[in-house]
C-alpha cells in the first residue's frame, strides 16, 4: 500500500504529465519520470517504479513519429492515456486498489497489440525499465538489487550502466589503484 504522502506526490506528478502532454512538452515528461527515481530508490515499491517506467515510456513513444503511422497506434495511445487519467482519479479518491488495477491495466495493453507495434512498444517499455534501473543504481542501490526491483537481467543493466558516469563519481573510488593492483598481484603470484 502506498503511503498518503507518496500518493500526493504521485498524483502531483501525474497531473503535471497530463499538463505537459497538452503542451506537447515531451522533455518535461521525461524529466518528470526522473522525479520518481528518488522515491523508487528508497521505497522500492513496485507500483511507484511502474509509474516511473510508464511515464518515461510515454515520453519515448511521443518522440518517435514512425510509431504514429502504425494502424493500432491511435487506439493504443488513447487507452494508454485513459489508464493514466484513471490512475489520477483513483489517487484523488485515495483508492489504492483502483490505482494498482490501473497500473495492471496499463501493463496489459501490450498484450492486445500485434505485429511491429507490439514489438516496438515492448522494446520501449524494456528500455524504460533499464533506464530507470540505471538511475536507481546511480543512487547507491546495488546492481543485483536494482535488477531484481525492475525485473531485468544483470546483463542488461551492466551494458547500460557502463555507458553512464557511475564509475566516475569520486565517492566511488575507495582504494588507491596501485594498492588494488598490488592486491591482484599478490593473488596471482
Amino acid at each position, binding site marked *: 500500500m502506498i503511503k498518503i504522502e507518496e500518493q500526493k506526490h504521485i498524483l502531483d506528478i501525474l497531473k503535471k504529465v497530463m499538463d505537459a502532454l497538452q503542451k506537447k512538452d515531451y522533455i518535461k515528461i521525461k524529466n518528470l519520470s526522473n522525479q520518481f527515481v*528518488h522515491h523508487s*530508490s*528508497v*521505497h*522500492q515499491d513496485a507500483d511507484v517504479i511502474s509509474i516511473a517506467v510508464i511515464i518515461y515510456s510515454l515520453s519515448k513513444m511521443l518522440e518517435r513519429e514512425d510509431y504514429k503511422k502504425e494502424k493500432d497506434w491511435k487506439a493504443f495511445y488513447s487507452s494508454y492515456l485513459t489508464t493514466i487519467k484513471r490512475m489520477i482519479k483513483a489517487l484523488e479518491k485515495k483508492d489504492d486498489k483502483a490505482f494498482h488495477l490501473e497500473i495492471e491495466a496499463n501493463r496489459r495493453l501490450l498484450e492486445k497489440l500485434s505485429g511491429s507495434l507490439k514489438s516496438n512498444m515492448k522494446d520501449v517499455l524494456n528500455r524504460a525499465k533499464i533506464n530507470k534501473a540505471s538511475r536507481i*543504481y*546511480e*543512487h*547507491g*542501490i*546495488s*546492481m*543485483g*538489487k536494482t*535488477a*531484481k526491483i525492475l525485473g531485468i*537481467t*544483470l*546483463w542488461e*543493466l*551492466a*551494458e547500460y*550502466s*557502463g*555507458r553512464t558516469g*557511475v*564509475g*566516475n*563519481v*569520486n*565517492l*566511488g*573510488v*575507495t*582504494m588507491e*589503484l596501485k594498492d*588494488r*593492483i598490488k*592486491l*591482484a*598481484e599478490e*593473488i*596471482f603470484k
Partner: protein
Amino acid sequence: MKYLIFDAGPLINFSMNGLLDSLERLKENFKGEFLITKEVKEEIIDHPKTVKRFQLGAIRLEQLFNKGVFKLADLNTEEVDELKRLRDTYMQQANSMFKTKKKPVHLLDKGECAVLALSTIMKRKCKEDVPIVIDERTTRIIIENPQNLKKLMEKKLHAKINAKTETYDLFKGFKIIRSTELAYIIHKKDLFKIKHPKAFEAIVYGLKFKGTSISEKEVQALSKM
C-alpha cells in the same frame, strides 16, 4: 589451495567483451580454484540461457563452467546451511545500514551477499583471505568505505541518511579486485591473444563500458602501468 570468488558482473563482463579465453588461460596460471555461488550461476548461465539476447554469452560461460574453469564451491550440507544463514545476515545488516527519515534503504541482494558469505566460509576453511572479483559499486563501497556510500546517497536523494555505523565492521576485511585488475594481470602475463599497442587500453575501456565501476582517471593510469 588458493581460491578466488567471482561475482556475476565480472563473468558477464568478460563474456560480453569476448575475453573468456583469456580467463581460461589465467585459470591455468592460477594455483587454485575460481569459485562461484549458486546465485551467480543462476545469473550468468541458467537465466540468461532463456533470454535470446544473452543466450550466446551464457552458453560460452556454461562451456567454461563445464570445463571446470570456474566451479561451485565444494561445501557439505552444514556449510551450505551456514552459507544461507550468513548470506541472510549480510543482507539483513546491509539493508538496515542506512535509513532515510521514512525507512531503511535496501542496498544489497541475495547474489551479492552469498558471495560475501562464501568468502567468509572459505577463509575459515583455508585459513587465509579469499578475495572476491566484483565490478558493481555498492558492495565494494560498503566493504571499503561505507561512509562514502552514505555521502553519495545523501547527495543523490537530497535527504539526510542515518547510518547504523556499528554494522560497518561486519563488512570490513573482504579483499576486492575488479575485472580491470584481473585484465591487468592477464596483460602482464601476456595471456591476451589480441596483440596491438592499444589493445590493453581498449580492453580496460571495454570492461568499463560493460559494468566495471572504474573512473576515467583510473582507466588512464591503469593503461599506462
